[in-house]
């Protein structure tokens, strides 16, 4: 075979390899159909589902992995695959959009339209790179951090109400679950910096720790005012309480405080001190290579999606929105509004990244402790006032 020089060459090679595998599998399938009863049953279902897709769904339901099963929800739709796809395309969008804002071109070659397959190409590249670690790194902790970061990002998806019907786990205290999961982030960042046994990661980790502890408290208090007005800790009920008016209209100050804290928790510009590229290379992610870095980035962006989703849930009315799909598609309409709002929040964060410089450490801490905390408390008193005066139905 010829040498691979360009991305189209690479895609051709990929198609040849995958196509060969598919042909091999089909042949294998043909042999197994006549010998193993389970496979021949599956074959019957497959043939029947060509004319009527409902047969396939019923068969999957009987196996316990149908559309209504918890496994499907965790693995596919409101869960991991969905979030990972959004994360990958947000990475592409962020690069392209920032490039446009800064009069550059951005990703261009991978994929036919505007480099839309760049994240996929990057992922394949990362898969084939060498996995390295510093010689004196603590290997166990070092390699478990990317998975841990993925886990604490994906754990937030469990309580995220994408629509009335599509939620993985409904709980009376799902708001507290969110804050319990957010509380793990500083430990992960600190351990990543410590396990790398290298200067830049350690400085980045200490910065991340300072920042996350400082902004967790105003975030909690801003969310507390939402809980006060809605009278519940259940995120589904919080969304239902916003059917007539969104909380961002009632408490714009609380929404702003929560948004700033989100930016700081996600380490995005203007609060990206833990990974300030011009000062400390990439912060606590500096020493990671290959798919460990890929996992780390995936975890960061899944967390980005999940936190934007939580902002949507708390302040932007979650799945509520005018009916734009034809009647009968109520659930799809809810999912579409939730996704649209979440993506808008993410785009707004990316715009902020494009137009803002970075804070200094002392400015950041003063902003967190002396400004946002006070504003969060003022907002809490305003929420109590709204509740006492009966302005919120």
């Amino acid at each position: 075979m010829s040498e691979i020089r360009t991305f189209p060459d690479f895609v051709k090679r990929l198609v040849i390899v995958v196509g060969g595998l598919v042909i091999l599998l089909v042949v294998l399938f043909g042999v197994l159909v006549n010998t193993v009863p389970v496979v021949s049953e599956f074959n019957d279902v497959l043939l029947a589902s060509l004319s009527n897709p409902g047969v396939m769904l019923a068969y999957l339901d009987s196996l316990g992995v149908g559309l209504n099963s918890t496994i499907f929800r965790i693995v596919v739709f409101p869960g991991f695959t969905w979030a990972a796809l959004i994360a990958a395309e947000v990475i592409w969008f962020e690069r392209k959009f920032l490039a446009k804002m800064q009069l550059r071109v951005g990703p261009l070659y991978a994929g036919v339209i505007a480099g839309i397959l760049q994240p996929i190409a990057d992922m394949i590249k990362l898969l084939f790179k060498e996995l390295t670690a510093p010689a004196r790194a603590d290997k166990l902790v070092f390699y478990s951090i990317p998975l841990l970061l993925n886990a604490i990002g994906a754990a937030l998806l469990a309580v995220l109400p994408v629509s009335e019907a599509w939620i993985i786990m409904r709980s009376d205290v799902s708001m507290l679950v969110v804050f319990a999961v957010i509380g793990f982030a500083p430990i992960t960042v600190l351990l990543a910096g410590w396990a790398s046994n290298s200067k830049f990661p350690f400085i980045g980790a200490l910065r991340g720790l300072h920042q996350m502890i400082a902004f967790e408290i105003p975030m909690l208090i801003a969310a507390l005012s939402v809980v006060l007005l809605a009278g519940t800790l259940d995120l589904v009920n919080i969304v239902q309480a916003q059917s007539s008016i969104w909380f961002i209209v009632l408490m714009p100050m609380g929404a702003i405080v929560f948004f700033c804290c989100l930016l700081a928790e996600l380490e995005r510009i203007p609060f990206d001190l833990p990974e300030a590229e011009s000062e400390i290379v990439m912060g606590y992610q500096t020493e990671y290579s290959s798919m460990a870095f890929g996992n780390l980035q995936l975890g960061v962006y899944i967390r980005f999606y999940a936190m934007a989703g939580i902002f949507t849930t708390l302040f932007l009315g979650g799945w509520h929105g005018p009916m734009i799909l034809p009647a009968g598609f109520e659930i799809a309409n809810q999912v579409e509004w939730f996704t649209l709002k979440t993506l808008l929040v993410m785009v707004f964060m990316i715009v902020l990244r494009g137009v803002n410089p970075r804070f200094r450490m002392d400015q950041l801490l003063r902003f967190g402790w002396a400004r946002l905390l006070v504003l969060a408390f003022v907002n809490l008193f305003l929420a109590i006032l709204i509740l006492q005066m009966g302005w919120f139905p």
Partner: protein
Amino acid sequence: MPELAFTVLAVMAIATAILALESKEIVYGAISLAIMLMSIAGFFILLDAPFVAMFQIIVYVGAVAVIILFTVMLVRREKWLKAEVGGLQMVGILGGLAVAFAFGLLLLQSTLGSVVASGEAVSFFEIGVQMISEYWAALLVLALLLAASLIGALTLARIDKEE
């Protein structure tokens, strides 16, 4: 199933507690402490009290364990290694076992075994109602304490500006 979960959690809690004290690498000790505190949260979930469990995680893992790790990172390693316990360790272990044994005997002889759970978990709304009706004094003291610590934090944050 709950018995199995209880056994796993209990073994995890005790093992990580021992590891937290005995580990040579102090950071591993801090991590095991965090895992121990999380298995305590697991006990609360087994007891049908997710509200308490989540607060256990938020306060102990999200705040206490982080502060401990933070302190560990900022202190030089040699200082920790110098602390020698020596022969007192055996005394401590025996003393701890004796106390645990005594508590076990006490619990076995108490009427705790005949208490029947009502089956309904106490909702956190009831906790809130109890807080403002029956235990209002404790709530007031807690609020004052929180306000004092908040004012203290704000003062500390403002000192930098005056310099």
